[in-house]
């Protein structure tokens, strides 16, 4: 055998030897609502460790992601921050009808970096703050929940001049974290790794529960990694991570 061929033969042998571990490994593109960023990263890591499949995550507001899906974005799985968009994705023919389920129930938190602000409903009534951050209610359900909460507390009209809007929940977080807004409505999951400051987990009776639904998009129907990712999300391992980040988990519908 010529040296070159020998080299190729060796290379081939190595590849064959490498296959068993990765034989089923595939890759899938997952669109993830911004509030689920940290949890999704951990899930993708655990998913890879368990199945060998790679999940590539794209983050944005649910509205932005859904618009991209309607324009042929290469996403195969959609983890929305609401129920409405996955439902619409099925109605409009972008997703598989039976794939929708609630993977997490989001919790809204009023958060401040200032421990003395004591972030409770009374903090919202205090005149001592200038800016209250939340996220765009049109694109992100946490923003809608924030407004609903303010309306339930009959503070919406009064606080409107103080509201500043992030494009998605990550940005609302950033506004508070950078000190530009003294308080903000964020997702409890974002505070999983944050200590200090003050927080008030908004009681569930002040806003409609944020049921976050997932769907398998048609582009991912034939991709085993996409299917496996959703299965992993429902599995005890996946659910444990979801809970760890402060989400509720509901019935699968």
């Amino acid at each position, binding site marked *: 055998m010529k040296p070159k061929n020998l080299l190729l033969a060796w290379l081939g042998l190595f590849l064959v030897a490498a296959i068993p571990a990765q034989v089923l490994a595939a890759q899938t593109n997952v669109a993830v609502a911004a509030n689920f960023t940290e949890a999704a990263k951990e899930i993708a890591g655990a998913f890879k460790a368990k199945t060998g499949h790679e999940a590539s995550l794209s983050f944005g*507001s649910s*509205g*932005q992601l*859904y*618009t991209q899906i*309607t324009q042929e974005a290469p996403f195969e799985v959609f983890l929305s921050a609401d129920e409405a968009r996955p439902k619409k994705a099925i109605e409009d023919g972008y997703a598989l009808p039976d794939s929708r389920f609630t993977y997490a129930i989001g919790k809204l938190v009023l958060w401040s970096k200032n421990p003395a602000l004591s972030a409770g409903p009374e903090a919202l009534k205090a005149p001592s703050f*200038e*800016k209250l*951050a939340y996220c*765009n209610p*049109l*694109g992100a359900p946490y923003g809608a929940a924030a407004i609903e909460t303010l309306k339930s507390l009959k503070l919406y009209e009064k606080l409107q001049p103080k*509201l*500043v*809007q*992030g*494009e998605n929940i990550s*940005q609302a977080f*950033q*506004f508070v974290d*950078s*000190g*530009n*807004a*003294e308080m903000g409505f964020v997702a409890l999951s974002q505070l999983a790794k944050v200590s200090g400051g003050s927080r008030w987990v908004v009681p569930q009776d002040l806003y409609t529960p944020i049921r976050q639904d997932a769907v398998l998009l048609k582009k991912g129907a034939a991709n085993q990694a996409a299917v496996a990712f959703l299965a992993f999300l429902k599995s005890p391992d996946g659910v444990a991570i979801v809970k760890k980040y402060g989400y509720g988990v509901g019935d699968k519908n």
Partner: protein
Amino acid sequence: MTSLPPETWTAISLTIELAALTTLILLVVGTPLAWWLARSRAWWKEAAATVIALPLVLPPTVLGFYLLVALGPDGPGGWIARAWNLRTLAFTFQGLVIGSVVYSTPFVVQPIRNAFEAMGDRPLEAAATLRASPWRAFWTVAVPLALPGFLTGAVLGFAHTVGEFGIVLMIGGNIPGKTKVLSVAVYDYVETMQWREANILAGAMAAFAFLVILTMTLLEKRFSRPGRA
């Protein structure tokens, strides 16, 4: 004209106000700067010119990030903000003006600098021999000669501020009447799939950009006609 919602008209007038104010500030601040860049022999001149040119290549998110920190209560913006009795300059019209000025500086300063440089030393020397004071020579000789540069700078600065998006998104807070400019309005429409509204606004902005570039090209042709200095 069309059935655009009133908040869109607010965004339009706000955008024009922001762009006009930014251009005005840049003409006032940028002219001495351009003059210095064109005339100075300081060894660090080009380093300064490079800093001014940075927004040309930096992603707006990079500038937006630094501005968010700099305008905040812990940054220099915090104590400037106290002049308006505010805590932070983020989420304010003033903050947007500061951001836009930083962002659009090279678009105004460079054409003016180029015009000053193209003029050369001779007209000023001639003015000096006629006993014009430097101040007078500047206003009666240099500025009229550099007028095309001023025009290009003003038009580019205005248009570029109108087209600004990343910085506004990072430091604006999307407040109608204060920081919600046209580009953000378009983004909101796209995100919520209001294609019709997005189309009208985006189309109008594209037409505006077309007109700006066409006007500039025609102006340049007119001014660079042979026979003119």
